[in-house]
């Protein structure tokens, strides 16, 4: 064990595939996936690692481009198989996980406020939509005062017309008196 190196390395999945077959036969459902990946997808990724220049010729399909999918801690002893001491599967980095959670949290808050207010009887009630709010979304202040103001202006006009009529009537009477 002296020469053994305990390392935390990112394993190449195609090297893993042999291990997979021997040790993880318990999961037959994942068989298909692993075979598929060992044949097509991940071999392409390895080739890409080896020769960057040739990548244009390869038809690689990368769902998660540079993300470390799996980390395996092995104990390496010369002439023997690697001994897996610890294995962990990472899908996202800490930061990415944090981002996901933050997004989830913010969406929830926004959603509660937004969708919660859509059907709120308070916003449809007189308390919220009274004087000023005409329901169109444009907040009009002093609506009552406006109505009263126009009523007074109307009153002023009425009185003016009355006055003019009286004057005209008086003039007509004068004219008639003059004719007689």
């Amino acid at each position, binding site marked *: 064990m002296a020469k053994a190196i305990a390392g935390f390395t990112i394993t190449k999945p195609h090297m893993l595939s042999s291990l997979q077959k021997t040790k993880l036969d318990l999961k037959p459902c994942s068989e298909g996936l692993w075979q598929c990946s060992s044949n097509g997808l991940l071999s392409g990724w390895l080739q890409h690692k080896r020769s960057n220049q040739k990548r244009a010729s390869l038809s690689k399909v990368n769902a998660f481009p540079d993300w470390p999918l799996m980390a395996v801690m092995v104990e390496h002893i010369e002439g023997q198989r690697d001994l897996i001491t610890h294995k962990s599967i990472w899908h996202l980095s800490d930061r990415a996980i944090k981002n996901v959670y933050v997004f989830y949290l913010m969406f929830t808050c926004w959603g509660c406020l937004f969708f919660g207010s859509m059907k709120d009887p308070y916003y449809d009630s007189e308390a919220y939509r009274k004087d000023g709010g005409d329901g169109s979304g444009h907040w009009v202040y002093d609506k009552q005062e406006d109505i009263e*103001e126009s009523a007074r202006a109307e009153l002023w006009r009425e009185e003016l017309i009355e006055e003019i009529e009286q004057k005209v009537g008086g003039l007509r009477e004068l004219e008639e008196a003059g004719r007689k």
Partner: protein
Amino acid sequence: MASTSLLPKTISPFLTNPPSLPWTHLTTKPSFFNPSADHHLPCTRKPSILTPYAKKKNPWIDIFDDGEDPDMEYGSLFVDGKQDEDTRPVDNPNNPYGFLKFPKGYNVEVAQLGLKIRGDVRRCCCMISGGVYENLLFFPVIQMLKDRYPGILVDVLASDRGKQCYELNKNVRWANVYDPDGDPEPAIYTDMIGVLKNRYYDLILSTKLAGLGHASFMFMSSARDKVSYIYPNVNAAGAGLLLTETFTPDSTNLSEGGYHMYHQMLDWLGRPIYNVPRQPVPPLRVSLSRKLKEYVEAKYRAAGAEKGKYIVIHGIESDSKASMQSRGDTDSLLPLEVWDQIADAISGFKPVFVIPHEKERENVEEIIYNEDIGIVFITTPGQLAALVNDSAGVIATNTAAIQLANARQKPSIALFGSEEKGKVFVPNAEEKKCIIVSSKTGKLKDIDVGAVKQAMQIFDMSLALV
């Protein structure tokens, strides 16, 4: 500040001083300097000449204000006469917006000259303390403003009850609820200051007796002229610093002045300046809109009254806020027992009782013996005025109804607690077709019903005249 110092400061109460002596003395002097211009004489000269009559000038307001310059030659543009009404800027069909706000050759600055030199008032705000009665008596002041400053826009701040009066006034633009007597919330207070600032008033008239608090409220509105009544006692300390002109009432209750409660203010507003003669005080008039008349007609029809064939009875004793009393006369409501006797005496007309609250309806039905009566529930002065307008006459205690009857020139019988009150609240009663019946004991309750019955001839007389 510069503009206010250019305005001639008036000599104060014209009612109290004998005007002939100082005037003749004054008019000779300036014509010596400018013999051709003797027709535009400022009505005031240096305050030092008028010391016995002039108000003491406060040197803190403007330390460089030495009063009128006696060598100043008036007679140029924007000094003489009243202000002109604002003309509407002409339409311009070539403009994509339909009109030009300032057409070619229109000098915007020229309007400012009149404001500076002549003291034009374009926008005025009246803050009126008190209820319906006080606001109703303020109508002549508004009419005076309209006459004295053509083209003026008058806005009103009044208490919620008082504001309802302005349904009857065609001369007012905006009427907002802000009770100067009350204790407003800080938010409302600051909001109102903002509103007043935004409206850029030239003149603010206030009938609240101002102390430092109210004066600073008016000062913060940054109007050009701030004119207010002040307390006639020590509470007025500091108010004069912030106000342009102050009036001292005879007592702490302005409403005790009766019909002429605002006479100091009217004197100041109608003061002669340069070439403008003294503006006569207009009588109290109210105008009624067609809508209001129709609404009230339906109301009294429902109560079983016919147009021109009923008599309005107003002033039933009640704890309602809508009884429209004056603050200067607290003893101005009659109990229903006395009204019952009066209603019995009415013949030929249907008595229509105005109740200020629905709870009074039962009481009236119970106590009034006369079966043939109408009961109308009215709380606003507008509806009351419309009711009075269609009636044959009014019998009322000292409430707004009596002033409305006078304003609509209807025959009326006014019931007062004492003769002095009657004279104060209804001066020139004969001219107004109003008969004052006053109680001998000084209490309205003990009023002589016989005298009221005798006075009822006035309704028959007016009917005969029609």
